């Protein structure tokens, strides 16, 4: 059953080195089975550019940052006060990939640049800095993408008036394995303008 006054206005799904925006394929890496770093650089070149901080991010942050960049293309957020925009994300591997890389450096000289990415919610920080989001945020770690929970949490924030727009979803990365499934949920319809329900969110994920 859909929840009145809450809409899924955009989606971005990244898996197997290809990207769907609002259920339409918008990008596939020209080199099949490319290195994840190269694939993410391809997304940056195609959808963004001119954001040097991107190159310093770990793979998890790059994936979430790029997914948000694509999600919010043609969906300006500057009508919202920074405090009215939230980010709710989840994944299974936390920041384990970067944790391992950091641990490898500790044997000699611990890397400050890696250390700052040894938490999964840093990706939320990178997204928030880029888009000037200052509202509610949370990062959950769970074995699988629990769509009713994550989107339901976002819907609750919208329903309670805590925020007016939420970027929410799943951002998973460990070694080459990766998947991002992002939703833009808002109280006003635009874009896809699908009335929110967990069932709709699940259909969009498939």
């Amino acid at each position: 059953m859909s929840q009145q006054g809450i809409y899924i206005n955009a989606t971005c799904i990244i898996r197997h080195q290809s990207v769907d925006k609002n259920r339409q394929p918008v990008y596939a890496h020209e080199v099949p089975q490319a290195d994840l770093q190269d694939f993410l650089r391809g997304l940056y070149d195609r959808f963004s550019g001119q954001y040097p901080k991107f190159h310093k991010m770990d793979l998890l942050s790059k994936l979430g940052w790029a997914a948000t960049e694509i999600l919010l293309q043609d969906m300006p957020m500057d009508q919202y006060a920074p405090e009215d925009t939230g980010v709710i994300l989840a994944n299974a591997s936390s920041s384990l990939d970067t944790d391992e890389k950091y641990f490898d450096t500790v044997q000699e000289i611990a890397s400050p640049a890696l250390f700052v990415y040894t938490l999964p919610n840093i990706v939320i920080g990178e997204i928030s800095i880029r888009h000037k989001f200052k509202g509610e945020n949370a990062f959950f770690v769970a074995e699988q993408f629990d769509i009713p929970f994550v989107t339901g949490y976002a819907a609750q924030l919208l329903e309670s008036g805590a925020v007016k727009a939420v970027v929410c979803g799943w951002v998973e990365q460990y070694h080459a394995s990766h998947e991002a499934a992002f939703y833009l949920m808002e109280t006003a319809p635009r874009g896809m303008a699908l009335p929110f329900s967990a069932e709709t969110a699940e259909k969009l994920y498939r």
Partner: protein
Amino acid sequence: MEKLMQDLKVQIIQQLNLQEVKPEDIGNDQPLFKEGLGLDSIDALELIVLLQQFHNIRIAKPEDGPNVFYSIRTMAEYITAEKAKQA
């Protein structure tokens, strides 16, 4: 000194992952932080690591950091002075 400054530019680009910056984009006297190359506090820590890894130099006094890392030239001067002390 010129060779050392050129090497430092390459090392900084590599260490700080400045993928959109070329060595020739960095002026010898350009400030590395804030309005110059735009480096941040984490980059400052990486520069300290760079001095250790590439030049075997430890910053003994943290308060020297802002002067040492002001520009490529001040870094090169510091490395040259420290190497002379080690010799």
